[in-house]
């Protein structure tokens, strides 16, 4: 396999974007990515578009619209979908096309327009990602599924509601320093702990936002990367896994087996151990998800995720800085864009371009992107 580098990245403003539809959101990520790489659409050979649900934006065949409006056409485009892990699934598809020699330059465009529908409707659409025969009829919302994990985690390990809230406090602390974040403001711990309950034990500040936005990344073969940049960021590890459709069937509800598999394979492929990772982007769709990620990725032992955040080990200066861009919680979670957004942040971290959020001297970054409630899991390793 050929080496693959990320050479250009672009990121639009995440938020409740009443001023933009799917096409504009994609555009404001694609153009900066092309400029960052120093190329034009003419240099692209293919595009991968990652959008989780066309029902949100009300546009069928959305990848065709994105390909057209951003000027990728007439080069080939197609869509990759793995729910909330669509972004990294698209990066993986592009990695395969470049590493195999099929293409030399491929763009990945992650985008989602979620606020075209009401929040109660968005909750409905996301609930349909649960088993529509046996789970959906009981009205299990997305926060509901993660709340089932949280209750069990609290029971097995004594994790507290305060520890959950601390994850949100951290991510808002960093999100307040990220100009593209959806909700760039700090949240006091007391406010987070006492916030309105969405699905017990998860409150408002335990849940990610319903966001609009886009992110893009341009992948190149080694030969092309050397031609266009002196600071390529290599994709050195790609691991993936899956899990049962029905959450109740799983042997453990405090861990995601697909994530463990993805991490194992990604570390192995990159030839690294967890201690070699300098900065991590993890899928904190809910605060409990970040705590489970600490454990499943090996940042700490099973059951110690609560104390890991309480001891501020996931802040800059701790054992493993996590989501120093604000994460899904504060930066926002336009579903199909998230995995690509993680790529953008890590590329900037490894190039040293993150200003006050910079992890000094970061050389290796990890991206953890989970779809649904673990049915899709991708872990990518980026290296300077």
């Amino acid at each position: 396999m050929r080496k693959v580098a990320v050479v250009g990245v672009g990121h639009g403003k995440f938020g409740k974007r009443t001023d933009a539809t799917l096409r504009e959101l994609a555009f404001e990520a694609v153009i900066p990515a092309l400029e960052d790489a120093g190329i034009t659409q003419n240099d692209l050979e293919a595009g991968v578009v990652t959008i989780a649900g066309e029902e949100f934006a009300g546009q069928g065949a959305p990848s065709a619209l994105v390909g057209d409006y951003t000027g990728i056409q007439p080069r080939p485009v197609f869509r990759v979908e793995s729910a909330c892990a669509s972004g990294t699934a698209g990066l993986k598809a592009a990695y395969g096309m470049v590493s195999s020699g099929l293409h030399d330059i491929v763009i990945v465009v992650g985008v989602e327009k979620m606020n075209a529908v009401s929040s109660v409707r968005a909750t409905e659409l996301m609930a349909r990602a649960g088993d529509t025969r046996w789970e959906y009829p009981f009205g299990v919302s997305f926060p509901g599924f993660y709340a089932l994990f949280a209750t069990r985690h609290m029971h097995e390990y004594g994790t507290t509601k305060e520890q959950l809230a601390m994850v949100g406090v951290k991510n808002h602390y960093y999100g307040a320093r990220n100009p593209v974040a959806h909700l760039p403001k700090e949240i006091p711990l007391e406010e987070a702990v006492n916030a309105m309950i969405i699905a017990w034990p998860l409150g408002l500040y335990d849940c990610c936002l319903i966001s609009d936005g886009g992110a893009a990344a341009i992948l190149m073969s080694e030969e092309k990367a050397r031609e266009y940049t002196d600071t390529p960021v290599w994709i050195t590890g790609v691991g993936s896994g899956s899990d049962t459709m029905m959450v109740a069937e799983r042997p453990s509800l405090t861990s995601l087996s697909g994530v463990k598999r993805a991490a194992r394979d990604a570390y192995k492929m990159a030839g690294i151990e967890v201690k070699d990772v300098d900065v991590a982007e993890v899928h904190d769709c809910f605060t409990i998800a970040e705590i489970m990620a600490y454990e499943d990725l090996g940042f700490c032992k099973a059951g110690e995720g609560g104390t890991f955040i309480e001891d501020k080990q996931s802040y800059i200066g701790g054992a493993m800085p996590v989501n120093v861009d604000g994460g899904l919680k504060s930066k926002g979670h336009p579903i199909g864009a998230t995995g690509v957004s993680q790529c953008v942040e890590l590329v900037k971290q490894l190039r040293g371009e993150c200003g006050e959020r910079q992890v000094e001297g970061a050389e290796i970054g990890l991206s953890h992107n989970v779809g649904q409630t673990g049915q899709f899991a991708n872990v990518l390793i980026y290296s300077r």
Partner: protein
Amino acid sequence: MDFGYVNWSTNTAVVEKWNEGLTQGKIMATRCTSCQQVFLPPRGHCPCGGDVEWIEMNPEAELFTYTVIMFAPESIADRAPYVVAIGQFENGVRMLAHLFANPNALKVGMKVKLKPEQLDKNRITVKYVPV
């Protein structure tokens, strides 16, 4: 007969048989005659390719985990708040359903029982109740 508070799936033979069990007050599961895996809710096929047979479950379970849904999906919003629970049965299988109990008196490990509940003439579901 349709299953669940809300649904939009067509009724396959497996669902018809499950619903029929419920109308008789029974919780039915399927079991693979080849690898012995038990499926609750029932599946018509085992991934190993073996044939499945129907068995009646002992409806008593332990509360494995739960949540109280305050902000519900659109189609079921009029029922909120409600408790969603996963019970674990004596043979180790687990199933998700609503739990009808005081949300402030829930405890992981408490004894519960899964019961059919006829919602109207054409609609049935299951619910956990404390024992």
